[in-house]
């Protein structure tokens, strides 16, 4: 019997020690008070409102409509808009695989043309907020994102849909993003070993500027001439042009994509969680074209060898750092956790850039 009680005692001691070690480890989680540190954690934009509300994160970086979703719900407020950090920065782009551009450039030009027309339609609708078209725009956005028309209204006004042609300024931004990724050591291989002389050369190779002119020559047809698989991000209203071009009502019964002879499909009907995930879908060969942020394209063409080209700009600006109402200044995020869509996304890059500009070290939460 002595043996048995000793054994039980031993078990109890082991359990107590393990629990104590765990408790100690838990309590020493985020305890760097004498250092300027902000922590990050991957939280999908669609979940950031809930995560801020229950205190899991103190702030989140997300794309529209999830910025205004949190703001209008009273969960948080905008600490800083992306254009206050990077004025007029390009955000989402339209890309096409090199194989599509080689084998069927006409199909890519048709998609781009529908996108150009859709963007023009949007600009007109936004310029006339009392028009029926604007109401239609809000309804399309609300249905896609699962957010109210009030949220969509604010989102549309915080995002730039001014142009589809990639400008020289956009190109410089792409070079800046590339340089930023280099300084963060995010390239698994050096871009020079991939055959580029430097960031500018890389960006020049990555952007196809000639397709835009070809797209402007495309004529409408009365039958489908191409099937194109297009990727997009979950509930992302930066990529509003795709929704407008897919909508039959906008086109007066036939969508703009179909008017230009393109049947559009998507292998992932809910959209991809972030740009890097969409780049993986390109690597898997299930996409011909896609809407996603420029930084994941710049990152994963090098790291994953995904052969895509940027053929158009989708939007500028339209991201923000949303903080819980108790946080009124960026400095109050000291020691707190900020949610981002994940490494490789433009929002993650924006947050790292801004925090470092303000002298903060950024660490993964819990490290």
């Amino acid at each position, binding site marked *: 019997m002595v043996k048995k009680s000793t054994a039980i005692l031993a078990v109890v001691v082991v*359990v107590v020690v*393990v*629990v104590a070690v*765990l408790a100690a*480890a*838990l309590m020493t*989680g985020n305890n760097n008070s004498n250092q300027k540190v902000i922590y990050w*954690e*991957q*939280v999908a934009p669609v*979940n950031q409102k*809930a*995560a801020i509300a*229950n205190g*899991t994160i103190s702030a989140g970086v997300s794309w529209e409509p999830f910025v205004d979703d949190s703001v209008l719900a009273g969960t948080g407020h905008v600490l800083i808009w992306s254009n206050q950090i990077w004025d007029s920065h390009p955000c989402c782009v339209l890309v096409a695989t090199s194989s599509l551009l080689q084998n069927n450039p006409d199909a890519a030009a048709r998609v781009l043309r529908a996108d150009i027309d859709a963007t023009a339609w949007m600009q007109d609708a936004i310029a006339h907020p009392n028009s029926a078209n604007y109401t239609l725009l809000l309804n399309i956005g609300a249905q896609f994102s699962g957010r109210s028309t009030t949220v969509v209204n604010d989102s549309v006004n915080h995002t730039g849909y001014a142009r589809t042609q990639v400008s020289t300024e956009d190109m410089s931004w792409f070079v800046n993003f590339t340089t930023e990724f280099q300084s*963060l*050591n*995010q390239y*698994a291989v050096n871009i020079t070993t991939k055959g580029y002389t430097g960031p500018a050369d890389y960006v020049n190779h990555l952007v196809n500027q000639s397709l835009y002119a070809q797209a402007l020559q495309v004529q409408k047809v009365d039958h489908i001439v191409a099937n194109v698989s297009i990727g997009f991000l979950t509930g992302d209203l930066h990529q509003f042009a795709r929704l407008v071009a897919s909508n039959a009502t906008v086109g007066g019964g036939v969508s703009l994509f179909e008017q230009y002879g393109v049947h559009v499909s998507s292998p992932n009907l809910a959209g991809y969680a*972030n740009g*890097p*995930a969409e*780049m*993986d879908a390109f*690597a898997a060969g299930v996409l011909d074209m896609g809407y996603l942020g420029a930084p994941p394209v710049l*990152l*994963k063409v*090098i*790291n*994953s*060898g995904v052969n895509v080209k940027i053929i158009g700009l989708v939007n500028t600006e339209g991201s923000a750092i949303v903080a819980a109402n108790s946080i009124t200044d960026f400095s109050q995020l000291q020691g707190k956790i900020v949610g981002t869509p*994940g*490494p*490789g*996304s433009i929002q993650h890059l924006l947050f790292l850039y801004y925090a470092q500009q303000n002298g903060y070290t*950024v*660490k*993964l*939460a*819990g*490290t």
Partner: protein
Amino acid sequence: MTKASDSINKLVKKSFGKKNIKTLAFIIISLVGFVLIWWIAATLYNIDYFPTPDKVYTAFINSFTHNDPTLGNTMWGNIFASLKRFATGFLLAFVAAVPVGLLMGSSKILDGLLKPIIELFRPIPPIAWVPIFLIALGFFWGPVFIIFIGVFFPLMSAVYFGVKSVDPVLLDAARTQGAGRFSIFSKVVLPSTVPHIMTGIRIGLGIGWMCIVAAEMIGAIGGGVGYYLTVQQLVGNYPALYAGIVVIALLGLATTSLSGYIEKWLAARMGFR
């Protein structure tokens, strides 16, 4: 997994006995052959997401010696984060599953009352809870409770069946000698369920380990080997991604070997085998 760990255990025990030279030769031929085929295939395909073994080896070593540029910690930090969650979830499941299994096995009323609920929840794959747990319980307790669910059901079932399969002769013998309900429980039922508990632990460890990797892939505080994979996938650092998979394989092998060893040790000590 268990077969592999058993063969390694045997190998260590009888190290280099004549009979085992054959086994050792097979292991070496098998592994070297695997690496060679991998190398040739990766060279032929020449795609970024299918790196050659040397690149994965370099990434594997680097992951332990250098801070990851995206995560800012080493593989040790990720392993520690995963093990912390794993241990917490496993302990909670153990503390809950053993009493529930014992009580359900011993009391017909509790069995009748709890069984419908348990049968309702048991078929749900633990991973199904990931999206909601991460939001509702946060980044530490979310994954912990996914492990809890993964370990709880197999462990509880094993304990339950252990109680049910107690030799009725032993129970009768105890009763004839005047043992009360509590004595029968503590001196007959409990000791004879220990081997079943151990089987439940071994199964639970395997499932729990799969759960932690999957749960961490969506998001986890302090990193973790599962999250390490997600991040390498996001930035497209494929050699590091494969290195993470190698780490998971090694840790899985270590976990099952350890539980197999404890099971044998306990069985020998308690005289069950």
